[in-house]
C-alpha cells in the first residue's frame, strides 16, 4: 500500500503538549509527530502570561496552595487527585523547561522571576501571590520554541503540514490515523500502536475569540465521530480582556502588574465583585463583571466595551489604594520603561491594531472566547477514558487543551494551561511509549482511508448552493451571543435549531477548488464540519446543565447546584443524536463551598 507509515507512537499535534509527548515518547519508542501547521505555528506560541509553579522564589508559596486555588478556580468541578498531581509536578516541570534552556525572566539572585495572576493567592492572607513564571509576555512562545528545539535535538520524526482526518480503531484498540499531506493532497495512513491527540481547542466556534484559525476542534470531532465521548463541553472560558472587536488577547499579566478595569464612567468596578483580590479574581468572575457593567449601561460610550487601564500613574495610584507592596514591603511602583520591558508584545498589539499607546491611553477591551475546559476525557496519565467508570481505551491518549483530565473543571486559572501541557503531555508520552513496548500492531483495515475519502468526496460533490463562509460566520455569531458568557434556555434552544439547519445547509456546500496541492478551501470546509459538530455538543451540554458554575453562567439558573450538578458531563454522538451521561467528580481534600474572591 502506498503512503503507509509505521510508528510505535503517533502524536497528532505539535503544540506544547504534542511536542512534550513526542519528546518523551521518542525516548522509548519509534515516534512521529504529525501537525497541520509547522510546529512553531501552533497556538501555544500565542500564550503570553506565564506558567504557574509554587516555587516561592520571591514570597512564601506551597503546592498545596496552588492545588486549593485551582480547585476553587475550577468551581469545584476539577478532579482533585489530578489537580494535586499537577500542582505537585509543577515545580519539577518548570525546572525541566529551564534545564532545556527556556529563557525565563530572572530575579536579581538569578532565579526564575514570577508574577501575579488571577486566582492565585496566598491561602493564609487571601492576597495575590506571585506564582506565574514567565519570559516577558511571550512565555508560550518560548515554551513552544524550546520544546521544538529539543525535539530537533532528539531527532523526533516530524510530519509538518499533514492534517489528520480520521482515527483508526481495530478490535476496540487504537490502530493509527489517516492524514492528508497538504502539499500534495495525498492521503497517508499512519499505522501505530499508540496514538496521542494533542490538537488544541475549538475557540473558533465563537465570533470574538483569542484563538487561532486552526482552533477548529479537529481532534475532538474526529473522536466523537468514532463514537468516543467528550467531557464537560459546556464549559468554555471567556477571557475578560480581549481587544475590542478583534478578540486579540491582552494577558492577565497586565492586571498582574497592577492594571485595573475601568467602566464608562471612569470607575474601577472590580472591588464591587471581588473585594479581596479585585482585578485579579478568576476569569469567569471578571468576565461576568464586565458584562454586567456593560448590560447596566456602564460600558464606554454605551458600547460593548470597558477600559483596561495600565498607565503607570494609575497603577501606582490604585496599588497605593490597595496597599500593595513589593516583596520587601516597600510600596509598589512601576515606570513606563519597566512596564514596556515586562509587556512588550501587549504594547505592540495596541500600537498595531488600535493605534494607541497603553502607557498614556486606556485599552478598549471586551471578553473574548479563550479556552476549552472540556474535551477528550482522560485520566491523569493522559489515557483516554470512555465512560463513567474511567475505562481506558487501549492505545489512545490525549493531552493539552483538547483533553479534559479534568484539572480545570468549570473554569481554568490563568497559567494552569501551560502547566497542563507540560505535565500531562509528558505523562501521555511516557505511557504511550510504555504501552507500545508491550502491545502489538493491530492489523489495518483493508481500506484505511475510506472514511476520510468519503468525507472529502461528500464536500466535493455538494450542490454548491451554500457558502462555507456564510455558514461559518452565522454560526460564530449565534454561538457567541446565545451560548456565550450568559446563557438561557431560549437562546440555547434556538441555537440548537440553527445548528441543525446549518448542518443541513452544510451538505450543500461545494468546493470550487478541484486541485490537490494546498487545497485549503477543502480543508476549511472540513474544519467547519468539525466546528458544527462541536457547537452542537457545546449547546446541548450547556442546555442540559441547569445551574451556573464557573464558565457556564445561566440566567435562568443563577446558582451553583452541588446537590444535582456536582458531576462531569459526558456526551456521545449516537445515530446522529447527542446522548448525555455523567461521571462523578473526584473530591479528596477540599469540600465545595461558596467561592468568594
Amino acid at each position, binding site marked *: 500500500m502506498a503512503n503507509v507509515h509505521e510508528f510505535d507512537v503517533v502524536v497528532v499535534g505539535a503544540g506544547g503538549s504534542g511536542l512534550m509527548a513526542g519528546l518523551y515518547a521518542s525516548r522509548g519508542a519509534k515516534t512521529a509527530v504529525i501537525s497541520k501547521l509547522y510546529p512553531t*505555528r501552533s497556538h501555544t506560541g500565542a500564550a503570553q502570561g506565564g506558567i504557574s509553579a509554587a516555587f516561592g522564589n520571591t514570597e512564601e508559596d506551597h503546592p498545596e496552595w496552588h492545588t486549593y486555588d485551582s480547585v476553587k478556580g475550577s468551581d469545584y468541578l476539577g478532579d482533585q487527585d489530578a489537580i494535586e498531581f499537577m500542582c505537585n509536578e509543577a515545580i519539577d516541570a518548570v525546572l525541566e523547561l529551564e534545564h532545556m534552556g527556556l529563557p525565563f525572566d530572572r530575579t536579581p539572585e538569578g532565579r526564575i522571576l514570577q508574577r501575579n495572576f488571577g486566582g492565585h493567592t496566598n491561602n493564609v492572607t487571601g492576597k495575590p501571590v506571585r506564582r506565574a513564571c514567565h519570559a516577558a509576555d511571550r512565555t508560550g512562545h518560548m515554551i513552544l520554541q524550546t520544546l521544538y528545539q529539543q525535539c530537533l535535538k532528539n531527532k523526533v520524526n516530524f510530519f509538518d503540514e499533514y492534517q489528520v482526518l480520521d482515527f483508526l480503531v481495530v478490535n476496540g484498540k487504537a490502530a493509527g490515523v489517516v492524514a492528508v499531506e497538504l502539499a500534495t493532497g495525498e492521503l497517508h495512513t499512519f499505522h501505530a500502536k499508540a496514538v496521542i491527540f494533542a490538537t488544541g481547542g475549538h475557540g473558533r466556534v465563537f465570533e470574538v475569540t483569542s484563538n487561532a484559525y486552526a482552533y477548529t476542534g479537529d481532534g475532538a470531532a474526529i473522536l466523537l465521530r468514532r463514537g468516543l465521548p467528550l467531557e464537560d463541553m459546556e464549559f468554555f472560558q471567556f477571557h475578560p480582556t480581549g481587544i475590542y472587536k478583534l478578540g486579540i488577547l491582552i494577558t492577565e499579566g497586565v492586571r498582574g502588574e497592577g492594571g485595573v478595569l475601568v467602566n464608562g464612567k471612569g470607575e474601577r468596578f472590580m472591588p464591587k465583585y471581588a473585594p479581596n483580590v479585585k482585578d485579579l479574581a478568576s476569569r469567569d468572575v471578571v468576565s461576568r463583571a464586565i458584562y454586567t457593567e456593560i448590560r447596566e449601561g456602564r460600558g464606554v460610550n454605551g458600547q460593548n466595551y470597558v477600559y483596561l487601564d495600565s498607565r503607570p500613574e494609575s497603577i501606582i495610584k490604585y496599588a497605593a489604594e490597595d496597599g500593595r507592596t513589593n516583596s520587601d514591603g516597600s510600596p509598589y511602583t512601576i515606570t513606563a520603561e519597566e512596564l514596556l520591558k515586562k509587556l512588550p508584545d501587549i504594547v505592540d498589539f495596541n500600537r498595531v491594531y488600535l493605534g494607541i499607546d497603553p502607557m498614556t491611553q486606556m485599552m478598549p477591551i471586551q471578553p473574548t472566547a479563550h479556552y476549552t475546559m472540556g474535551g477528550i476525557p482522560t485520566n491523569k496519565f493522559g489515557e483516554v477514558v470512555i465512560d463513567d467508570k474511567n475505562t481506558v481505551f487501549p492505545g489512545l491518549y490525549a493531552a493539552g487543551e483538547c483533553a479534559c483530565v479534568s484539572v480545570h473543571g468549570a473554569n481554568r486559572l490563568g497559567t494552569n494551561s501551560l502547566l497542563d501541557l507540560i505535565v500531562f503531555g509528558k505523562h501521555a508520552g511516557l505511557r504511550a511509549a510504555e504501552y507500545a513496548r508491550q502491545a502489538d500492531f493491530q492489523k489495518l483495515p483493508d481500506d484505511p482511508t475510506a472514511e476520510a475519502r468519503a468525507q472529502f468526496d461528500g464536500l466535493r460533490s455538494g450542490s454548491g448552493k451554500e457558502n462555507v463562509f456564510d455558514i461559518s460566520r452565522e454560526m460564530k455569531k449565534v454561538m457567541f451571543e446565545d451560548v456565550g458568557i450568559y446563557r438561557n434556555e431560549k437562546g440555547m434552544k434556538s441555537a440548537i435549531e440553527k445548528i441543525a439547519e446549518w448542518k443541513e445547509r452544510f451538505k450543500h456546500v461545494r468546493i470550487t477548488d478541484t486541485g490537490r496541492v494546498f487545497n485549503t478551501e477543502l480543508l476549511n470546509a472540513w474544519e467547519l464540519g468539525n466546528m458544527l459538530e462541536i457547537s452542537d455538543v457545546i449547546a446541548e451540554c450547556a442546555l442540559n446543565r441547569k445551574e451556573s458554575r464557573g464558565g457556564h453562567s445561566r440566567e435562568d439558573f443563577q446558582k451553583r447546584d452541588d446537590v444535582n450538578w456536582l458531576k462531569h458531563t459526558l456526551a456521545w454522538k449516537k445515530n446522529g443524536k447527542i446522548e448525555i451521561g455523567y461521571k462523578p467528580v473526584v473530591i479528596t481534600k477540599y469540600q465545595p463551598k461558596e467561592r468568594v474572591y
Partner: protein
Amino acid sequence: MQVTLKVFRYNPDVDKKWHYETYNLDVEETERILDLLELVKGHYDGSLSFRRSCAHGVCGSDAMRINGRNMLACKTLVRDVGDKITVEPLLGLKVMKDLIVDMEPFFDNYKKVLPYFINDSPLPADGKERLQSPEERARFDDTTKCILCAACTTSCPSFWGSDDYLGPAALVTAHRFIFDSRDEAASERLKIISETSGVARCHTVYNCTMACPRDIQITKAIGELKMATLTGKVD
C-alpha cells in the same frame, strides 16, 4: 473604503504560468490584509490559498510581500498601506500555490545552526534552575522573539542569490544561543556560522531588520556575531 487588491495567483493543478488577479473590495481601513484575503477566499474565489493561524502576528504563518515589502498579512492594516494593495509570495523560495511557498530550505538552514540549548554539565547541586542574572538574560532577549516567519531571510539579497546562505533567521537563532550565558556550544556554532554560507554573506543590507515583524535588531545581532567569530568575545 474602496480598495483594489491585486493578488499573485498560481495553481499548479490548472495553471501553467502565474498571473495576477485583481479584486475590488469595500473594507474598513482598520481591517488586516489577512481579513481581505479571507474575504476574497470566502466570496470571490475559494481556491485562493495562503497560510495563516494566529491572526495577530505571533505564529509567523503569513509572511508575504505586500506592496513590494515583506510583512505579516495579519499585522498590516489597510490604513498602513493605502487603497492599492498588491500581495505576492515571498521571494527566494519556490511558490507551491498562490501565496504559499516551500519553507523547507528555510527550515533546513535553521536546523544547521544547532538550534537547541546545549549544556552537558551537571545540573546545580540543589536540582534547581541554572542561575542567570537579569543582565545576562537581557543580553539575548531580542533574539528570543523570533517566530520563524521567514520575512527576514526572504528579503535578503544574499539569500535571493542562493538559498545556501544561512540567512538572517538562522543567524538570529544562533545569536540567541551563543549569547545565552547558560549554553555551552557557542564555539561549535561560531564555527558553523563562519563558513562560507554564514555571516560573511551578510552585506548589511538591512532589509531583514526592516522586514522583521517582531522588531528584532537583526543586522545588529549579525554584526555582533561577526565580531564574535573574530574575537571570541560573547559577553
